[in-house]
């Protein structure tokens, strides 16, 4: 396998709030085309890590590198527009479904109704295009959110427990779309999930976070095999994991 480009790199990054260190990542590299699942207990810092990756927060210590360029405290809009996040709760505007999907494009000054229609079709919401988005069910709204994220063709797509509140049908629609997107567009996809089965289904590689630190990272096969780290196996088994000195 040829070495893929390092898209995002964290170096010596620490985030602290109210004196507590929430994220402590000496070195993390994310490659172009990765399909990475981030797992870990609640409060492990997964969401904060994702915010850092989406350039929503500047690192309190350390630096971020995007395609090798070190990012300033306030990244330029061109940088920020390469990454987008689908959050756990979809935050749609009080407009029609198709207007919501087109939002990111509208912000970039692009008009592409064909693309919007195509994405709506892919999430199975073609018939609801003109409906007010806030009238949709939770699952439908999340599908709109995903379509919205895909519309802008991000280099890096982040998902923060995006299917946590959804029923199996909506979950599978979204998972299929992610798989398709990764296969055809080679989009780098990084998703946080509590659902290890989902991680197993989708991810090519997995990462375990404990108390703000990355304690394990490997290919998905290895991660879910008996050969994985003790901490990984404990976590997956639902046992209380004691963070070890070695990482």
């Amino acid at each position, binding site marked *: 396998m040829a070495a893929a480009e390092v898209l995002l790199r964290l170096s010596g990054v620490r985030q602290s709030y109210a004196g507590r260190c929430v994220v402590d990542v000496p070195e993390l590299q994310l490659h172009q085309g990765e399909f990475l699942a981030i797992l870990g207990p609640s409060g492990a810092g997964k969401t904060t890590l994702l915010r850092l990756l989406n350039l929503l927060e500047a690192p309190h210590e350390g630096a971020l590198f995007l395609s090798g360029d070190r990012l300033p405290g306030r990244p330029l809009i061109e940088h920020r527009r390469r990454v*987008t996040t689908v959050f756990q709760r979809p935050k749609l505007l009080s407009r029609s479904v198709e207007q919501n999907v087109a939002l990111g494009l509208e912000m970039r000054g692009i008009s592409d109704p064909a693309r919007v229609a195509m994405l709506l079709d892919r999430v199975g919401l073609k018939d609801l295009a003109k409906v007010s988005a806030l009238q949709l069910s939770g699952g439908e709204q999340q599908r709109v959110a995903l379509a919205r994220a895909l519309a802008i063709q991000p280099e890096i797509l982040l998902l923060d427990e995006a299917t946590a509140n959804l029923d199996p049908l909506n979950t599978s629609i979204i998972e299929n779309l992610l798989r398709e997107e990764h296969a055809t567009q080679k989009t780098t996809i990084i998703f946080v999930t509590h659902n290890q089965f989902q991680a197993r289904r989708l991810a090519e590689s997995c990462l375990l976070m404990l108390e703000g630190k990355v304690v394990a990272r490997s290919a998905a096969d290895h991660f879910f095999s008996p050969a994985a780290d003790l901490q990984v196996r404990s976590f997956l088994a639902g046992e209380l994991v004691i963070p070890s000195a070695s990482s």
Partner: protein
Amino acid sequence: MKGSWETIQTAFAEALRLVAGLDPRLLEILEMTLQVSLGALFLATLLGLPIGALCGLEAGPRFRGLIRGLMYTGMGLPPVVVGLAVYLFLSRSGPLADLGWLFTPAAMITAQTFLALPLVMGLTMTAVEAVDPALKPQLVSLGATKGQVARWTLFEARGGVLTAIAAAFGAAISEVGAVMLVGGNIEGQTRVLTTAIVLETRRGEFALAMALGLILVSLTFAINFLLVAFGEGKTLRGRG
């Protein structure tokens, strides 16, 4: 009291007569009223909306508390005090004499803009604060510039923003102390409905004053109705 009741009845009849007959002096006053109040509303919205939105979005809690205190004070400013201050600045013996705005509609628009501005800023800020805080990171994540974050947050807050505009308009069109001072209530030049009402009341023409009052209320209602309809229309269509 019988006399008062008669006055009110006469007032209604007088109002209808003036409007139906397109009384030229009334039309002159109406034109001036709209020019001044809508002009002030326009300027107050132009300045107040972005500032209010910015404060609601960016400012830290303590700064926001200070701004809110200032805005509440601004909303409670007696119009005649603002009028006096504007007069002193625009007077021929004042610093801005060269503008030549005293006793012209420009001075009246200035005074009313100062009065309407805190309302627009404060109520817009409140409306923006009431928007789900999860919207901002979502917009930023989609690649929004600061301006776009403000634009779409304002869009989601448009109900409150409309209230801000309606309140500011109400304040402007019903205001009398400031426009009297800086405008001079000059017939044919700076007379508006409110100052005309003061004049007729002073002259003891209560029925006529009341009639003008009825016309003023109707005018305010008509414009507010248009504002609300405009807002509702946009909401229903779900467009921005």
